[in-house]
């Protein structure tokens, strides 16, 4: 049930056809897991908090560094040295005090991932390395939790939405690995992709529109082009394929 204050705050989105009070209530009831409080996490969490998602559970084990500030806009100069999850929680609570922020300072690992995502309705992939993304994808499939993938490099970004049991997952699309590295990135790229992830989350929760499912969206900021690739569920996928389910 929305309060009078909430109805006023969200009036401009409540008036959207197909969204309404029901959509807003669905957002309020949701608990969203945001894996990473970096560039993608900053933009997706900001817009999910502003939209009135009830609970954001943000997990990250890093502290704020000077070199983060060109893109991780939840963290400011005064936050250098602070835990990223604390810095993120403080900004999001200032933006929207009605949103509950669960700030967890932990590294996401095979051992703790199931416990970390327990009770969450969906997962936003805002990580900075592929092994962690694969771990999140596998956990999402195993626990039947929708998974909202995003990744960036330089001026390029990607996004895809995974609905377990129904659509292609990240492992259906990506087979390989890339070395962990200090990657180049300009702040506007995770801003764009994080907002696409937040858009997908809002649509999913409100039950509106067409999700970015079975479609990999590639954003080329330098040439300002969006290209969409059709992707298919792989019956032999090591994460969601039936014959080999459970393998890495």
């Amino acid at each position: 049930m929305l309060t009078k204050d909430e109805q006023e705050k969200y009036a401009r989105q409540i008036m959207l056809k197909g969204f309404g009070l029901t959509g807003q209530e669905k957002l309020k009831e949701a608990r969203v897991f945001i894996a990473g409080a970096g560039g993608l996490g900053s933009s997706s969490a900001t817009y999910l908090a502003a939209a009135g998602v009830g609970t954001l559970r943000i997990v990250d084990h890093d502290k704020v560094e000077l070199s983060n500030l060109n893109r991780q806009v939840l963290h400011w100069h005064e936050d250098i040295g602070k835990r990223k999850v604390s810095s993120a929680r403080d900004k999001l609570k200032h933006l929207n005090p009605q949103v509950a922020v669960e700030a967890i300072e932990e590294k996401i690992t095979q051992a703790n991932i199931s416990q970390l995502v327990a009770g969450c309705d969906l997962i936003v992939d805002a990580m900075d390395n592929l092994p962690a993304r694969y771990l999140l994808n596998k956990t999402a499939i195993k626990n039947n939790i929708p998974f909202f993938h995003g990744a960036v490099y330089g001026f390029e970004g990607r996004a895809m939405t995974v609905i377990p049991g129904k659509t292609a997952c990240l492992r259906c699309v990506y087979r390989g690995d890339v070395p962990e590295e200090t990657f180049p990135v300009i702040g506007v790229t995770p801003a764009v992709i994080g907002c696409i992830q937040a858009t997908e989350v809002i649509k999913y929760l409100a039950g509106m529109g067409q999700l970015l499912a079975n479609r990999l969206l590639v954003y080329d900021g330098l040439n300002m082009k969006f290209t969409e690739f059709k992707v298919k569920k792989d019956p032999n996928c090591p994460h969601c394929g039936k014959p080999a389910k459970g393998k890495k």
Partner: protein
Amino acid sequence: MSVTVNLGTGLRRFTNGKTAATVEGNTVGQCLDELVKQFPKIKPRLFDRKGKLRNYIDIYVNKESARPEGLAKPLMDGDEIHITLIIAGG
């Protein structure tokens, strides 16, 4: 067959910044070989020492995955290939 090969952003430093190239070939593999002839420096980024396509490269034909045929996938005149690299930054 004349085919357009679109290059992902991570490959353009090997093609003098070009975003696409026109090549001749009947399969994805032939088109990639032609691409390498035009831009030899791209070869080690696409293939390992044994000539196998690197596992961080994804190929799409007319915006659909080239799997399962991969390099053997036959092409038609006017087809479009996209070569992309997995990215993982956040």
